Structure formats: C-alpha cells, structure tokens
C-alpha cells in the first residue's frame, strides 16, 4: 500500500477513536466541564498532561531545532522539563488544595480583588491565544504534507474535530482523548527513532545509541564523529554551543518558570481527587514527557549525521528520492552557486548552497532511514495527536476564563449552572473559530510570540502564585503591581528587541543585539522580568497594609493536605 492510503487509514482510525471517547465522556455539569469532576486518576492525568504539554512544536520541530543548535538545544530540553519540578514542589499540591477551577480563581481569591482577577484573566487569554493559533497552523501543515489537501482545508478539518470533543466533553472529554493521543504520539515518535538508532549504532535504545559507536567501520563515537563533521564544514562542534553562558542560563530559566506558570498546564492538576495525587501526577507527567524529551536529542544527532553524510559534497543528481520530494515542498532548497553540480553545505553564508527547514528532521526521518510506509503514516497521526491535544487544552482555558472568571465571577454571579455550561460551550466554539482564523491567516508575529508566551507567563503568573502560597504577608497591592510591572517590562523588551519597534522595525533587530540588557536575548528576558515582578511586589506589599485575616487563613489552609475534598465551586 502507498503512503497516502496508509495515512488515510491510520489518521482516520485515530480520529474515530478520539470522537468515540468524546461521546462516551460527555460533560453533564460545569464541574465535569471545568475539571472533569475532579475524579481523574493520577496516572491518567499524567498522560493527559504530557499530551497537553507536548505540542506540534515538541513533536515536529524540536529535534530539528536541536540538530542545528547542538549543545545549545539543551535550553529547550532542560527548560521544558525542569519546570515540572517547580510545579510538583511549589504549585500543584497547594493549588489542588485550594480546590477551585482556574488560575484567575486563585489570584482573585488570594488577593481578594476583582482587579487582580481581571489582570490574571487578561494574561491567561494573551498566553493561550498566541499558543493555540500556532497549534491550528501545525494541524494544517501536517494535513497538507501528508494528505495533500490545502493548509486551509487541514485547519478546517482540525477545527471540526477539536470543536466536537472540546465543546461536547469539556475537560472530561479532553482528558480521556488526551490519554489516547499520548499513546498515539509517543508510539509514532519512538518507532522511527528506534529504527534509526539501530541503523546508525546497532543499539535499540536511542538514549544509549546517542553515546554509542557509529556503525560506519571507523570505530569512532557518534558524537566525536559529528563534532568533526560539523567543524570540517565550519560550524561549531556539536557538543559545544555558540550562545553565551548567561543567555543559555536565562533562556533555560525563563522556559522552566514559564512552564510552571502556564494556565493550561496548571489547571490539569485540579482534575485529580487529592493533594497527594496532584504531587505524584506531576511526577508521572514528567516521566511520560521525558520519554520523548530524552529521545529527541538522540534523534537530532542521528539526523544531523545522516544528513551531512548524505548531502555534503555529493552530486546533486545522485540525491535519493526523499530529497527531491521535500524539495517540492520548499523545505529543502538547493542553489548551485559555484556551478559544480555538487552540494556544498557549510557555515559560510556566501558559499553555502543548501537550506534545510527544522521540521524536516522528524517528518522526513522515516524516509531518510528507508522505513516502511506505515511508519511514515504513523508520524502524520502522531503530529496531529500532538497538535490537537494541546489545542484542546488551551481552548478549555480560554472558554473557562470567559464563562467562569468573567461571566460567573464578575458580570452575572446569579447565572444558573445550566446557562454557565452553555456559555462555556459557546465560548469554546468561538475560541475554536478565532484560533482557526489565525491558523489560516497567521499574523507574522505568531511564531515569534509562541516562544515568548513562556516569558509572559514567567513574568506574570509565576511570582503571584508562588508568593500567594509561600508568603502570608503578600497583599493585593503588591501582587497586582508586580504582575503589571512584570508583564509590561516583558512586552516592552519583546517589542524593542524582537520587533525593533522603537528603532525602525524588524530590520533593526540584528543590530540591536549588542544593546541587550545583561547580554540576555528576548527569549531569556522572562527571567529578568520575573525578578522585577518579585522585587516590585515585595517592596509595594511592605509599604501597604497586610492582607485581611480571612485571607491569611486561606493560606494556612492550603498548606496542609487534609480536608481537600473534591474540587468545588464555591
């Protein structure tokens, strides 16, 4: 059977499974819609969190990105996993004990003010919308490459699927679909990785093959060989980075703290029955995430070795079929600058003749390694599972923010349960359509902003939540001032150094690098903005009155697990 038939069969089966689960797990109450009734087992929640967390970017782009960055790719590997330690130790158990539905719920109650609640809702909406647009785009891209429909059509199909199970099932439907999606995506990631590891190093475990001896008879370690290949072409050694140490440090920190502050991740820990479950569930989540995240750097090194060996200084006419195929998608571009018919792939921009898109490393891997057609189809299903699961989780945060944090808590507190559920479904539907629109007409800034969403979350939510738990003295004035300063500083830095708004636009961005504060890139600036948030909040809170006694009691109460009960509404 050809690739296309296989893809239709495997993707079709996986979609049928998701829809079946959605029908089986319809939500009947707001509690089921917001937090799956608070009855999800920690293991299932760990899998759902992993699928929720790993987006199209983790699945499709990350390995490729690392393979071009070498050592520097560690910022993503450590940054996107280390945040779970902070979640498990500093946030999840206490927020679960607090026992409501959303992050703005916590901020609003702990800081006894609707101003704080509104600031939190705005931050949650900014972070989630930028993120979800990227996911819908990912769905479109996978559809167009593997099923040969247009990107627009792909986005629309994706919208219908997500609309169906997010609107019908709410958190309950999303949770159980995400469990299935995790299984699909991890299987789809591991199968090609294992095949390639065997082919290159003879070791079936990619994490070990990564440090093994390469199979080309040279007797060299794979990484030593790759360091040499890179250096011969003028690149930095693979195990040695090009970024400054302070920047690597700042980016890693911003990604970790941002991860711990992302509303769609935090809310997953409201769905388990007990405080104890929230702790262990974060452990399971990281375990499931780590399977992919420790494989990705191995895939990156394998793919880079394979690629250099296949293309470097070889006749263009002798290129394998996959090279030609991906050339038509413009993800590989070759321009024979010196007219010798050979491919020169080197660091020097003027002599380099080949440009390769990051996404290729995972998408084309099965073809590069000559794997059977069903494996290629599986990768398509895996990419879709990753994109859809993340999109659904984000849409839920958006709909909850509107139906609960705005309508129920602020505009119309007397709304009936039935109507609240209706509003939740309506806002989910509107959010899907808006996200779909951005997926079809992506504004140029989406890609840049997705990476910066972490900086925004780090600069706003993380300090407010941490101090809400660990400091009884922190008051409304301090927290609001901190969040506003943090997020404004982050947005300012982004506009100045990522978009060059104050210096004549995008073209000025490269020239501004020397002016970076402390030598930190916009991606890493969330670390500085977060520290500013903490500092402002502490200073302001000591100049203003302490929070009322009732709030100090809330803080006492969330610090001990007993009496958590189930996630409740009031």
């Amino acid at each position, binding site marked *: 059977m050809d690739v296309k038939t296989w893809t239709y069969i495997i993707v079709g089966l996986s979609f049928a499974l998701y829809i079946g689960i959605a029908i089986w797990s319809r939500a009947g109450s707001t509690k089921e819609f917001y937090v799956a009734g608070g009855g999800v087992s920690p293991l299932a929640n760990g899998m759902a969190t992993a699928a929720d967390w790993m987006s199209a970017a983790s699945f499709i782009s990350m390995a490729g990105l690392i393979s071009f960055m070498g050592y520097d790719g560690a910022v993503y590997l450590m940054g996107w996993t280390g945040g*779970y330690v902070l979640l*498990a130790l500093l946030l999840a158990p206490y927020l679960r004990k607090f026992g409501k539905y959303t992050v703005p719920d916590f901020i609003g109650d702990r800081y006894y003010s609707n101003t704080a609640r509104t600031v939190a809702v705005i931050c949650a909406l900014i972070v989630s919308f930028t993120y979800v647009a990227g996911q819908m785009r990912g769905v479109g891209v996978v559809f167009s490459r593997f099923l040969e429909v247009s990107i627009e059509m792909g986005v629309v199909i994706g919208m219908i699927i997500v609309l169906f199970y997010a609107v019908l099932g709410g958190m309950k439907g999303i949770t159980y679909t995400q469990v299935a999606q995790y299984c699909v995506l991890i299987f789809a990631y591991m199968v090609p990785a294992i095949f390639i590891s065997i082919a290159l190093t003879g070791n079936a475990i990619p994490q070990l093959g990564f*440090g093994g001896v390469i199979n080309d008879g040279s007797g060299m370690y*794979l990484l030593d060989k790759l360091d040499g290949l890179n250096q011969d072409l003028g690149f930095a050694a693979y195990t040695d980075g090009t970024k400054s140490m302070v920047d690597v*440090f700042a980016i890693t920190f911003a990604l970790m703290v941002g991860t711990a502050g992302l509303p769609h991740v935090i809310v997953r820990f409201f769905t388990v029955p007990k405080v*104890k479950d929230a*702790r262990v569930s974060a452990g399971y989540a990281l375990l499931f995430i780590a399977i992919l995240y420790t494989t990705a750097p191995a895939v990156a090194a394998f793919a880079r070795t394979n690629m250099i060996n296949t293309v470097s200084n070889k006749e263009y006419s002798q290129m394998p079929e996959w090279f030609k195929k991906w050339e038509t998608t413009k993800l590989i571009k070759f321009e024979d600058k010196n007219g010798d018919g050979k491919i020169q792939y080197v660091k020097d921009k003027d002599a380099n003749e080949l440009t390769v898109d990051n996404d290729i490393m995972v998408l084309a891997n099965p073809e590069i390694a000559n794997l059977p057609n069903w494996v290629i189809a599986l990768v398509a299903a895996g990419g879709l599972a990753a994109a859809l699961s993340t999109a659904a989780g984000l849409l839920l945060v958006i709909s909850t923010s509107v139906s609960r944090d705005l309508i129920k808590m602020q505009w119309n507190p007397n709304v009936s349960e039935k109507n609240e559920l209706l509003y939740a479904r309506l806002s989910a539907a509107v959010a899907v359509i808006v996200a779909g629109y951005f997926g079809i007409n992506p504004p140029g800034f989406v890609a840049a902003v997705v990476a910066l969403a972490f900086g925004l979350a780090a600069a706003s939510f993380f300090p407010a939540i941490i101090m809400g738990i660990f400091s009884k003295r922190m008051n409304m004035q301090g927290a609001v001032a901190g969040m506003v300063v943090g997020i404004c500083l982050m947005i300012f830095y982004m506009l100045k150094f990522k978009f060059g708004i104050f210096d004549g636009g995008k073209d000025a961005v490269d020239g501004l690098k020397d002016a970076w504060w402390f030598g930190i890139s916009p991606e890493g600036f969330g670390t500085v903005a977060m520290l500013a948030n903490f500092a402002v909040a502490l200073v302001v809170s000591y100049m203003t009155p302490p929070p009322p006694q009732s709030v100090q009691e809330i803080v006492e109460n969330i*610090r001990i*697990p*007993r009496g958590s009960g189930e996630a409740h509404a009031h």
Partner: protein
Amino acid sequence: MSNNHLQNYWKKNLFYLVVLLVIWFFSSYGAGILFADNLNSIKIGGFKLGFWFAQQGSIYVFIIIIFVYVYLMNKLDKEFDVDEK
C-alpha cells in the same frame, strides 16, 4: 491541631524543598551550564559529561527529585497527621 504543630510541619516541608531545589539547580544549571566546560573533560562512553547532563542527565534527575518529594511528603503528612482520609 495546634499552631505550633502545623508550623513544624511547614518548616520541615520547606527544608525538603530547599534541599531538593538545590539538587535541581546543580544537576541542570550547575552540571549542564555553569560547569559544563569543566565536566566535558570527563568522558563516559561517547558522552562528554557536561553535554550529557545538559541533554540527558538533568531530565533523569528531575524525575527522581519529584518521586523522592512525593515519598517524603506522604511520610511527613502521616507523621503530622495531616494526610487526607
């Protein structure tokens, strides 16, 4: 439950947090970034040690930290009789 009792529980929790977060910091920022160049002179199999910590080891350590924390806290909750029934 007396205030003192709960304060002791909280202090012990904070002690665990500090110890585990120090390990968290050293396995990632320490071994993977600040001292990576020094550790790279040590090789285990085909891995330079600093590089291994940055792309593999730190993640394994993170998982261990969380499960150790879960174990310690479950024990502490029982010891101070604040666990969920």
